[in-house]
C-alpha cells in the first residue's frame, strides 16, 4: 500500500514555529526601534542641555572665538557616528544675535526657555531646540539639532539592535527544523509501523510507545485491528460454512450423477435420482439463504422496511412445516396472544423463523413438542422445544422436507437478521419444564417510536 501524498507534518510544524518566531522577532524589532527612538530623543535632549550648560557661563565671546565665528558647518569635524551637528545661537535681551555657529536656519527670538520643536527654514523642517537665559538674564543661548539627524540616530541605534536578529533568523530556522525533524522521529516510526501493518494477519503495533499522545493512538489502532480481525474471522467462518453448505450438495450431485451413469436402471438408479433431486433442492435452499444474507448487507434495506404482522408470518411458517413435522413424529404448534405489528423485512424475518423451526425439527428426537411463541408486549419471538425430555437421538427420522442449515450457520443467519432489526438473538435459553428456547428479542420502544 502506498502512502497518501499529503502535506508533511514536519513542514507544517516548522512553518508554524517559524511564523510564531517571526512574529515574536517582529515585536522585538518594533520595541527595539521604539526604544532606540526614545533613547535617541533622551540622548539628544540631554546633549542639547549639556551643550547649553557648557557654553552659557562662557558667554557669547566663547562662540565668536578670536574675532571670527566658529566654522559654519560642524560636520567638518565629525569624527564619531553619534556626534551630532549642533547649531548654537546667542541673543542679548533686545533679541540681537550676539553669536551663532552651525547651519541651522535662524530661529525667531523669544524670551521662552526650555525644549521646543520648531519648524525652520524653507521648506520648513523640524528642529529640536533648547533655550536658556544666563543667570543675569543678559543673554540667551539656544542650541538646535535637526530632527532628521536625530531620527537618523534613532534608526541607527534600532538597526544595531535588529541586525543580529536578522542574521540569526535563518540559523534559528535551520536549527528549529532539525529539532522538529528529530522530535517527530517517534511519530514517523509509528507511522511507518502502522503503514506496514498486515491487517489480514491481525498484526498489531507491537513496539513499545514512550509518549502518551502516541499511546492513545496505538491503543486505538490495536483495538481496531482486533475488531477488524474478529469481524474478518467471523466473515471467513461464515463464508466457510456457506461454502460447505453449498458445495456439499454439489459434490453429492456429482457423485450421484456418476452413479446414475454407471449403474443399470433399477432401484439403485432410482435411489440415486431421488438423492440427486434432494441435493439440488438443498443447494437451491442454501442459495436462497445466501442471497437473502447478501441483501441484508445493503444499506438501502433500511428504506425497504415495512410494517408487518409477525403473528401472521409465524402462522404461515408453522402451517407450512406442520405436516412434515407431524409425519416425522414431532409436534409443531403456535402460541400467540394476537397481532404482533413490527417494522421490518418480511422475507428476512421469515428466513430467520424458518431457520429456527428447521433447526428445532432437525436437531430433536421424535416425540418432541416444538412451539413457536409470540409475545407482542415483550417483543419476543421464540421457538422452544422439550427435546431434553425425549429419548432418542437428536436428528433421528428428520423430516425429509426439512433441510436445515448447519446449526452454527443457521444461528449466524438468525443473528444477522436480528441485528438488522435492532433485535438480539438469544440461543438455547433454558425454560421451565426442561424446555429450551431460541429467542429473538425486539426493541419494543424502537418499534413504538417507528
Amino acid at each position, binding site marked *: 500500500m502506498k502512502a497518501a501524498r499529503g502535506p508533511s507534518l514536519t513542514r507544517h510544524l516548522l512553518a508554524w514555529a517559524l511564523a510564531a518566531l517571526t512574529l515574536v522577532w517582529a515585536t522585538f524589532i518594533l520595541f527595539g526601534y521604539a526604544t532606540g527612538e526614545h533613547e535617541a530623543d533622551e540622548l539628544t535632549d540631554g546633549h542639547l542641555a549639556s551643550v547649553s550648560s557648557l557654553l552659557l557661563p562662557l558667554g557669547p565671546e566663547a562662540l565668536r572665538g578670536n574675532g571670527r565665528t566658529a566654522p559654519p558647518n560642524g560636520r567638518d569635524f565629525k569624527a564619531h557616528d553619534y556626534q551630532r551637528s549642533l547649531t548654537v545661537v546667542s541673543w542679548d535681551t533686545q533679541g540681537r544675535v550676539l553669536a551663532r555657529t552651525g547651519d541651522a536656519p535662524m530661529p525667531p527670538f523669544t524670551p521662552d526657555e526650555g525644549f521646543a520643536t520648531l519648524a525652520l527654514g524653507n521648506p520648513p523642517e523640524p528642529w529640536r531646540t533648547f533655550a536658556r537665559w544666563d543667570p543675569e538674564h543678559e543673554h540667551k543661548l539656544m542650541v538646535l539639532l535637526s530632527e532628521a539627524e536625530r531620527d537618523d540616530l534613532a534608526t541607527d541605534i534600532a538597526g544595531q539592535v535588529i541586525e543580529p536578529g536578522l542574521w540569526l533568523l535563518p540559523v534559528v530556522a535551520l536549527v528549529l527544523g532539525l529539532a522538529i525533524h528529530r522530535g517527530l522521529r517517534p511519530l514517523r516510526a509509528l507511522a511507518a509501523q502502522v503503514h506496514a501493518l498486515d491487517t489480514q494477519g491481525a498484526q498489531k503495533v507491537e513496539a513499545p510507545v514512550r509518549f502518551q499522545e502516541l499511546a492513545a493512538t496505538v491503543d486505538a489502532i490495536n483495538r481496531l485491528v482486533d475488531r477488524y480481525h474478529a469481524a474478518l474471522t467471523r466473515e*471467513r467462518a461464515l463464508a*466457510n*460454512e456457506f*461454502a*460447505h*453448505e*453449498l*458445495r*456439499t*450438495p*454439489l*459434490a*453429492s*450431485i*456429482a*457423485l*450421484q450423477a*456418476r*452413479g446414475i451413469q*454407471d*449403474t443399470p436402471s433399477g432401484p*439403485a438408479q432410482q435411489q*440415486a435420482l431421488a*438423492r440427486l433431486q*434432494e*441435493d439440488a433442492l438443498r443447494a437451491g435452499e442454501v442459495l436462497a439463504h445466501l442471497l437473502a444474507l447478501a441483501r441484508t448487507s445493503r444499506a438501502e434495506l433500511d428504506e425497504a422496511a415495512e410494517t408487518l404482522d409477525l403473528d401472521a408470518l409465524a402462522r404461515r411458517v408453522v402451517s407450512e412445516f406442520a405436516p412434515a413435522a407431524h409425519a416425522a413424529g414431532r409436534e409443531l404448534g403456535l402460541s400467540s396472544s394476537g397481532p404482533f405489528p413490527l417494522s421490518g423485512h418480511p422475507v428476512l424475518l421469515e428466513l430467520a423463523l424458518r431457520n429456527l423451526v428447521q433447526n428445532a425439527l432437525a436437531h430433536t428426537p421424535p416425540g418432541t413438542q416444538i412451539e413457536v411463541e409470540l409475545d407482542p408486549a415483550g417483543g419476543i419471538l421464540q421457538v422452544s422445544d422439550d427435546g431434553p425430555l425425549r429419548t432418542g437421538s437428536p436428528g433421528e427420522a428428520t423430516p425429509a422436507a426439512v433441510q436445515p442449515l*448447519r446449526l452454527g450457520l443457521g444461528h449466524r443467519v438468525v443473528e444477522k437478521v436480528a441485528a438488522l432489526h435492532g433485535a438480539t438473538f438469544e440461543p438455547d435459553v433454558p425454560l421451565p419444564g426442561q424446555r429450551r428456547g431460541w429467542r429473538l428479542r425486539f426493541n419494543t420502544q424502537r418499534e413504538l417510536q417507528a
Partner: protein
Amino acid sequence: MRVLVVEDDKGIAEGLAAHLSRAGHAVDCTPGIAPAWRALTAEAFDVVLLDLGLADGDGTDLLRRLRQAPAGRLPDPATPVLIMTARDQVSSRIAGLDLGADDYLTKPFDPDELAARMRALTRRLAGRAETTIRYGDLEMDPAARTVRRAGEPVELSAREFSVLLALIEARPHVLSRAQIEAKLYNWDSALESNAIEVHVHRLRRKLGDTLVRTVRGVGYYVPAEPGA
C-alpha cells in the same frame, strides 16, 4: 483397497461408497470423528477420505490425533489421509497439508480425480513412480484395473484383481487371510469363510501355480523375484 470415508453428508458418503465399490475398493463410511477413530483403532485402512466440517467437530482434529498416534499399532499414524472439503482457501489447504494430510481435494470433485489421487497416494506409499506394476512378464494397471501377461490381457474379477494387487504390493511379505479380507471387504459384506481361498485358486488357474505361494496355517505371499 480398504477405504474409510469420514463424511457426515449422507449423499456424498453413499455416492462415494457406491463409486469406489464399483472400482473394486472396500469402503466403510462413518459420519463423525468418534466413530472414525473407533474404526481406525479396529482395522487398518489403506486410505482415509476425510471431510473437515463434521457434525461432531473439525476433521483436522482426527487428522492431528491420527498423526500423533504411536507407531507400530492401530491406528496406524502412517495411514494416508486425503482431505475432501468445501474450504477452498489457500490457507486452509496449507493448514490441512501441514497437519499431515497427504492430499487435498475441494468439493465438488470429479469422482475419477478422487480415484486417481487415491492411486497416487498408494503408489507414493509403496515407493514407486510408475503407474503400472511390472512383475516378470506380468503387468498390472491399478488405474484401469487390467492385467497383462506377456502382453496378453488376462480376465480377472474385481476381487481377484484386488487380491493379486494386495499380494504383489506387499511382496515378499506374507499376508494372512484376515489381512487380505480386510483389504477386500467392508463391514457390511457377507463374507464366506473360504472366499479368499476361492480367489487364490482362480488366480492360480489364470496366472499359473508359481505366482501366489501358500504358507500353510499362515497365509499367502508373492516372491520378491518372479520364479524364485
